[in-house]
């Protein structure tokens, strides 16, 4: 990833422009002050996103990911993640690193103060928990379909691990993968499920085929609200990924390495 920093702006922030004219000098000082304020404000909002918004979103996803509503009386059913969800979440973290959605050196460093490393660890833990719960939300809970969908997730993640990815492409790819899994589970499979169990109920209501499918595929009976909750969970997770910076922001940033472009006269940073 390459970012361009305007040389004049950075010089103004440093306040090192020397001018012969007193008017020019005054303008330069005002410009330097406003540039510094904008930079500080921008850094403050980045810190809020990084240390408050992103972990708050990921924690919300971690909470909602396993929540289901019972078909009978909308009671809460908290479904703990299966072991396979932990493995997939770990693979996803590796994928994030490979696609430079997260740059390990930018999040953890000996040069950072311990508090910053600890806070960054907390953000990463929240991200891991959210990733795990997203898989928990999208993989069917039991039966043959659990293994079939898990296999497709494993296949996709495994092949992606060896592909060349950009951050944007990864986000689009994850969005489509999770979107497809959501459609399969909460639109297609849930349409097979009849709300009330029992052979005689099915016979009387004329839902014998659906009842048979529910039994054969071992589909759990949840209320329609579950799909809405999981939809927002998925959307929140993708928003969380979008706002997560690849490199942690802070006042004790690592020194920027780069070169001055001979054509534009601006600084090109290389990360």
């Amino acid at each position, binding site marked *: 990833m390459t970012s361009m920093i305007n040389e004049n702006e950075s010089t103004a922030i440093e306040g090192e422009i020397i001018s012969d004219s007193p008017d020019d000098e005054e303008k330069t000082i005002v410009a330097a002050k406003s540039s510094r304020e904008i930079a500080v404000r921008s850094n403050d909002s980045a810190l809020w996103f990084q240390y408050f918004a992103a*972990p708050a979103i990921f924690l919300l996803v971690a909470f909602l990911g396993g929540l289901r509503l019972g078909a009978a009386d909308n*009671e809460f*059913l908290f479904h703990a993640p299966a072991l396979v969800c932990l493995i997939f979440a770990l693979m996803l973290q590796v994928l994030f690193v490979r696609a430079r959605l997260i740059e390990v050196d930018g999040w953890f460093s000996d040069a950072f103060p311990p508090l910053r490393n600890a*806070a960054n660890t*907390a953000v990463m833990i929240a991200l891991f928990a959210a990733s795990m719960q997203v898989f928990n939300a999208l993989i069917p809970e039991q039966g043959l379909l659990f293994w079939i969908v898990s296999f497709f997730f494993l296949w996709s993640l495994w092949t992606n691990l060896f592909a060349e990815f950009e951050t944007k492409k990864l986000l689009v790819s994850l969005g489509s993968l999770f979107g497809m899994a959501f459609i399969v589970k909460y639109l297609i499979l849930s349409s097979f499920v009849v709300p009330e169990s029992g052979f005689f109920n099915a016979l009387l209501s004329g839902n014998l085929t659906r009842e048979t499918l529910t039994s054969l595929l071992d589909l759990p009976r949840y209320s329609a609200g579950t799909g809405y909750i999981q939809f927002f969970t998925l959307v929140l997770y993708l928003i969380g990924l979008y706002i997560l910076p690849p490199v942690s922001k802070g006042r004790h940033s690592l020194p920027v390495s780069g070169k001055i472009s001979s054509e534009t006269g601006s600084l090109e940073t290389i990360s």
Partner: protein
Amino acid sequence: MNEKYLQILSISMVAVFGSLIVWIYWAAPKNFEEISIKAQSTIENISTKTQVITNTYEVDRAKFDEGVKNFREENYILARDLFERADPERRDAATQFYIAYSFYRQGWGRVSNDDELFQKGLEQVNRVAALDKDFVSSDADLQLKTPVELKNEFEEGLKITAGDFNPLRILRERK
């Protein structure tokens, strides 16, 4: 806001809400009402465990006294519930002895005993013996003062012998 404060806020948020999420998935409340009930129960458990760790654990005297009152009024089910709540960690030999005794008195019958209650009583009296081998009850109302005597009653009550068919059994008295 200062960067350090934000970082502390982030760590605290993840620790507190992370623990809360783990607790919710562990407790699995079915509705909003159950959340407060389970939270209260968890806090009580933690408080009792802390008392045990810090060696400040004591039986709830008020519940114990109420349990004894109900035991004397032959309301054994309520008495057992009160004794269990008075000693949730099952560490007090006197309270556990009363629970065992309540199984004996409730299960005792002039013609035949309730084997299920006697079996539970036997398990309970073994717990008393494990807590304090030399335990002797100071309650004058109880004829069986030690776990050994009570255990013998349970074991005899669970056996089927020729004496069980003796018609004079109906004349025996509960201890």
